[in-house]
């Protein structure tokens, strides 16, 4: 099994980082290397960090409701920087309809409330290409 490196980031201004922390710990315990970047990151902070860290997966935790705009911007910047091939997954309060729209735009997976940590780990391994 490959040692997956995942960047966990909280874009935007919401300060609810419990979810991101729980997920980071769970993925750490699943044997992954989790780069946690903390609160209030701008899309360019996140893309820059993903580039420097050569993360296999980028995980975003968004509870502010601004997920559409933030994700669009991050995907745009990733293209500009030449790292569009890295899968991006999103967790948080995302309405079902928006989740579908996000996937159409290129988000690899959306994890809503109630997602089990086992499912999360499994899907992240899948999108990282480590089945």
């Amino acid at each position: 099994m490959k040692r997956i490196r995942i960047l966990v980031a909280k874009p935007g201004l919401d300060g609810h980082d419990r979810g991101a922390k729980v997920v980071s710990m769970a993925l750490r315990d699943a044997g992954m290397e989790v780069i946690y970047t903390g609160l209030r990151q701008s899309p360019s902070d996140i893309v820059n960090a993903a580039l420097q860290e050569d993360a296999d997966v980028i995980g975003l935790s968004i509870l502010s409701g601004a997920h559409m705009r933030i994700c669009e911007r991050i995907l745009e910047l990733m293209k500009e920087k030449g790292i569009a091939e890295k899968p991006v997954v999103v967790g948080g309060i995302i309405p079902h309809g928006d989740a579908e729209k996000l996937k159409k735009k290129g988000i690899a997976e959306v994890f809503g409330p109630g997602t089990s940590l086992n499912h999360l780990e499994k899907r992240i391994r899948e999108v990282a290409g480590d089945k």
Partner: protein
Amino acid sequence: MNSNSLTNGDELSLSKALSVVESDRISARRLISSLPEKHSLVVGVTGSPGAGKSTLVDHLSLRFSESAKTAIIAIDPSSPFRGGSLLGDRIRMSRASRSGKVFIRSMASRGLVGGLSPGIYDAVDLLGRCGYGFVIVETVGVGQAETDIVNLSDLVVLVLAPGIGDDIQIMKAGIMEIGDIYVVNKMDMPGAEQLARRVKSILEFAGIEREIVMTGAVEGKNIDKLSDLITGKLNKLKKNGEIENSRKKRTEHAELNAALFAVREAATEGVKLEELIECLQKLREGE
């Protein structure tokens, strides 16, 4: 990935190359030796967990980046059970990270217990050849004996903070001996002055002449003083030629580190230790 994009300062190529360094040593060595030899000034920053290393490194890297390309390698521990890790040093490095002037890479210690990570020597070598004038290596939060950083660095900054215990802790062998510069961070906290005085008197007693700097990393206090002291000392090492010695030492330890890992890998793959020793003896006799 070609060597041109690496020497031209392309961050994406460098980032990918560092992943090779962490995953495949043989390819990494091939790649590194294809680049012209060039050295960084390597500053090691070590100290106990929560002493303020990452915040200090954040400030220092920005100062250094005014005179040369600067990179940070920040190491955090891997789990001894599942191998995973939580790399959280970037959280404290938002200034450097946002400035766009500093290259920051997090690394997991992956079973190395000396405070560093297996790929660290190759990573430092690579950054030097890619034109980085300064590399700051932040160790995992250390206890008393994780002193490998001294073999890797040209200069070691030992970061202390109030609340570490009494004089006896400072008198112990190991970590307290390896600083070229001693920093007492969190200078506004009770006990900071007292700690600085204790460190001073114990160093004096041991006949070691070292500077002690008090800083407030969060508030940005005395950062210039510390930064000037570091660059001043590095310049002196360059002038009097001592830097060559520390580079030689680094190369020796890089080889030692690689050898240790090769043996460990062989052992985990089930190669019998007796067979390994026999092989080595045959190799030696063949010389």
